[in-house]
């Protein structure tokens, strides 16, 4: 399987079709990340396409010595998601992502309720905390990569993730009384 940096070289040398390999390799993680950041599955595809087209336009600025291709691509996705969030109005609750729940039917309602409230808590967090938390907890990215994507020092990113966790745990404790 060719390395990302080799494919980038091929594309820059005029082999535009090779870009498809990068699109197919990263379409799922990029779409997943955008979806979690903007909470809107309808616009996720449109923004995802823009991310890859922008990556193609700016490919000559990618420096393999500075970062991995995936980090560079996720940074573009992160920036475009932030721009999309700035443009759009708050999302109605009914447009929140659907949850597939495979647990006991008797627990289903309370768990769904619980998850929905946690989603709301996550959405209410400041953008920097929310993104750091999503990258670390949902996308399972290493802290170093999150720091590069966010353009922030490693310590700051760790602190943001911890603050987000603390706030979510605090919200869970608060909810516990209502749900059990």
């Amino acid at each position, binding site marked *: 399987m060719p390395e990302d940096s080799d494919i980038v070289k091929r594309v820059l040398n005029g082999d535009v079709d090779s870009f498809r390999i990068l699109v197919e390799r990263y379409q799922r993680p990029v779409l997943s990340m955008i979806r979690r950041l903007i909470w809107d599955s309808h616009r996720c595809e449109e923004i995802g396409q823009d991310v890859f087209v922008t990556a193609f336009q700016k490919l000559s600025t990618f420096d393999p010595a500075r970062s991995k291709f995936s980090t560079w691509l996720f940074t573009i996705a992160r920036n475009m998601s932030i721009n999309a969030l700035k443009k759009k109005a708050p999302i109605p609750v009914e447009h929140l992502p659907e949850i597939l*729940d495979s647990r006991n039917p008797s627990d289903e309602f309370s768990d769904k309720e619980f998850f929905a409230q946690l989603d709301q808590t996550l959405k209410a967090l400041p953008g920097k905390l929310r993104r750091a938390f999503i990258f670390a907890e949902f996308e399972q990215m290493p802290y170093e990569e999150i720091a590069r994507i966010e353009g922030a020092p490693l310590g700051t990113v760790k602190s943001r993730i911890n603050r987000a966790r603390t706030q979510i745990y605090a919200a869970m*404790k608060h909810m516990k009384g209502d749900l059990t």
Partner: protein
Amino acid sequence: MNLDEKYRAWKERPTPLNVPPDFAGEVMRRVHREAEQRQAQWNWPGVLEFFQRNVSFQYAALAVAAIAGLSRLWLIFFAILKP
């Protein structure tokens, strides 16, 4: 379930993500359009770089500029003296 288990269940719940079947195809169509447009456009940094590197082209451009300048001088000269 205790809080930790609920937290883990929330974090690890499967969220449906359907990558549209022709997502890569649509991206590639836009990428090809972009590449074609780029080829059709003048690449000004490339033109400047060519001019900077090619000395004989610089002399040729200088000669054209000199001839153009001189021809104007001749016009002024003829206008004043009216030979």
